[in-house]
């Protein structure tokens, strides 16, 4: 499949999609910032048009036969060639639509959510920057371009997570997100360098088609794993998963964006983007599978004890990302991508719904929300339930189908343990999702809604009118529709992603469907018993096991470990020692040298006594010795 050059129409549309958000960023940030409404309008237009362009492109290329490639030299020097351009193929087109759609919806939603916030214009500028980076990442034609926008995605999420930076926890979370993903990117970057030095070609098509043939297996695995480090950081996989729950400090729409289509999706997208490359190295795929599984189970357990609604969804994101990686690691390319797509829809929906509650009740604790009468808000409550059901994989929602594809991919593996672990994960997901849903639907007692206290971070709450409510509700409905519809689009998408060719029909495991339905039902049933039924204590079985509870609530002490490492190794050891060395040894040495020089000067000044006879001594002595020397030698 040799790439073809784009025609004028395609070029225009793609560049529009890539360029407009950047334009919007500069325009809003530097020019229109004082005029909030104008800024929002600019930003909305500049994210709406790329969405239309993306849809147009997708529709126009539903039966595309060869990837479309267009690129310029961005930088060249010393054997490194960095290109800037776009690569249109089914995967990038699908992802482009997802990204533009979610970011557009989030921008619409933010109109209501951020109403009255003094930094609203700046917020929209950052959203545009975020959209620009992600779109350019998705369309990247070369790995280096992908890396560059990968970093920019990290930067924009840093800016957005720490958007309410007067809160210490927010700025801390932003920093944590940036540094932890940077740690992973280190591996990504080294992987790129390894590929560059050994292959000399960083174009995605080239990597996918030739890398396996031209690299030795060892190098291939090494570079694949190094690149996967970047995925681990960005998609918050084990062991770098703790930044994502903290990233909840950002405004909720940002979380929606972050969790569904942009930041964390980038990691999974990268693996799918380079999927043929990864297929060249079974060991690397094996690691992907292992990391995905560990992450999924670990974060599911964390979600089971969380009481902050956003935390629950954050853990579920991590676990679902792990699930996608399991699918990819098992060789199910379509499974991973399909789950990514459906997940983007329902996870965005979950966050946006939660945002409505948070906005309304000024709390993140869903027990408190429920007591305050959350079930009174019909649209968000219904859509939340729908999305939650999709998350736990209830038929006939999108989540069910994508989950089944992933499980089917896992079933292809020779070792059945992976499949059972995947099913176990699905059960845990159902349990914690329904736990939350039951608590929300069936609060133990209702309280009068609390006064809208000063909840740091939420500007003024003057805009509670119907308009604001509906501005926030409309995207919910769109996403809910997607959540329902995407389930049916599975086969179509599959053939689209496979370039229209019919796929070898995999074995259908009817028992698998029943098994997973059973597990989901068990999880949901357990949740019903503990939280849903009348008179339930609304305390999970885990609360009777304080050891496990603490372990899960403290994120398996991963954060503690990082804190310890940072405090005692980075700050306590290296930083302190190097600083001491700088003060005492390097600087002290120089100062000592200077003092010694001064001392020597003082010593020599003693010779200058003004006593002529001493000069005479020296003179005579030297003359005599010189005379002796010339005589004797």
């Amino acid at each position: 499949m040799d790439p073809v050059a784009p025609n004028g129409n395609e070029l225009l549309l793609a560049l529009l999609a890539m360029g407009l958000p950047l334009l919007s960023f500069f325009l809003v940030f530097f020019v229109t910032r004082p005029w909030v409404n104008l800024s929002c309008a600019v930003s909305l237009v500049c994210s709406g048009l790329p969405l239309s362009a993306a849809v147009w492109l997708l529709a126009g290329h539903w039966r595309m036969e060869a990837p479309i490639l267009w690129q310029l030299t961005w930088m060249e020097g010393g054997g490194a060639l960095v290109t800037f351009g776009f690569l249109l193929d089914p995967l990038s087109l699908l992802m482009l639509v997802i990204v533009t759609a979610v970011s557009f919806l989030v921008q619409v939603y933010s109109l209501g959510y951020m109403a009255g916030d003094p930094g609203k214009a700046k917020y929209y500028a950052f959203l545009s920057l975020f959209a620009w980076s992600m779109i350019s990442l998705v369309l990247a034609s070369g790995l280096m371009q992908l890396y560059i926008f990968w970093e920019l995605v990290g930067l924009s999420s840093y800016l957005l997570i720490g958007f309410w930076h007067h809160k210490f926890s927010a700025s801390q979370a932003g920093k944590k997100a940036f540094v932890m993903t940077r740690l992973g990117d280190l591996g990504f970057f080294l992987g790129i360098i390894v590929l560059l030095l050994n292959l000399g070609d960083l174009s995605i098509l080239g990597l996918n088609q030739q890398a396996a043939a031209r690299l030795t297996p060892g190098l291939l695995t090494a570079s694949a794993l190094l690149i996967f480090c970047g995925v681990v950081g960005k998609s918050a996989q084990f062991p770098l998963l703790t930044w994502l729950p903290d990233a909840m400090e950002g405004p909720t729409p940002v979380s929606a964006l972050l969790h569904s289509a942009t930041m964390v999706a980038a990691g999974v997208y990268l693996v799918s983007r380079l999927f043929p490359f990864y297929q060249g190295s079974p060991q690397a795929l094996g690691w992907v599978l292992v990391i995905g599984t560990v992450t999924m189970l670990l974060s599911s357990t964390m979600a089971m004890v969380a009481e902050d609604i956003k935390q629950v969804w954050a853990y579920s994101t991590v676990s679902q990302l792990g699930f996608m990686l399991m699918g990819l690691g098992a060789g199910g390319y379509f499974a991973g991508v399909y789950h990514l797509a459906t997940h983007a829809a329902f996870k965005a929906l979950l966050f946006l719904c939660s945002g409505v509650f948070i906005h309304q009740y000024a709390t993140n604790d869903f027990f408190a929300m429920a007591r305050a009468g959350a079930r009174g808000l019909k649209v968000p409550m219904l859509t939340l339930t729908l999305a939650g059901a999709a998350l736990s994989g209830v038929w006939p929602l999108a989540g069910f189908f994508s989950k089944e594809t992933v499980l089917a991919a896992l079933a292809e593996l020779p070792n059945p343990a992976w499949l059972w672990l995947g099913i176990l994960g699905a059960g845990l997901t159902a349990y914690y999702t329904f736990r939350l849903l039951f608590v929300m639907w069936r609060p133990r007692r209702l309280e009068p809604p609390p006064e809208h206290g000063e909840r740091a971070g939420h500007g003024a709450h003057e805009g509670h009118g119907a308009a604001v409510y509906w501005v926030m509700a409309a995207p919910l409905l769109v996403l809910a529709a997607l959540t329902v519809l995407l389930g049916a689009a599975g086969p179509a998408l599959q053939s689209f992603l496979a370039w229209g060719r019919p796929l070898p029909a995999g074995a259908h495991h009817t028992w698998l469907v029943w098994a997973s339905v059973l597990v989901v039902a068990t999880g949901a049933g357990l949740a019903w018993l503990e939280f849903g039924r009348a008179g339930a204590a609304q305390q999970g079985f885990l609360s009777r096991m304080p050891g496990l509870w603490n372990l899960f609530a403290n994120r398996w002490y991963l954060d503690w470990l990082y804190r310890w490492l940072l405090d005692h190794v980075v700050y306590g050891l290296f930083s302190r020692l190097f600083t001491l060395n700088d003060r005492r040894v390097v600087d002290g040495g120089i100062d000592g040298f200077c003092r010694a020089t001064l001392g020597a000067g003082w010593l020599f000044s003693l010779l200058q006594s003004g006593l002529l006879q001493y000069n005479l001594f020296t003179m005579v002595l030297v003359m005599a010795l010189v005379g002796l020397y010339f005589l004797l030698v």
Partner: protein
Amino acid sequence: MNSLHTYLFIALVLFCIGLFGLLKRRSLIGMLISVELMLNGAGLNFMAFNRFLAPDPAVGQVAVLFIMGIAAAEAAIALSLILALFRKIRSVNVEQARQLKG
């Protein structure tokens, strides 16, 4: 008595005694006296060479006469300097004259 070495060593001893005095004495006048001794040692040397080696016996004597002349001049100058210094610091002790110390 009639060997060159005898005289040379006498001259040398004289010279070294003068040198010793020059280095040791703190009195400027004492130093001047020591210098005279050294000059005499040198003159003695000239005469010794004149007596034992030189082709023309007059040349050595000329040299010694010159030395005497120089010595006289030097003594005059030195004494006047000593007097001037004495008026300045009320002492002829050379260790008191330390204006050269920075």
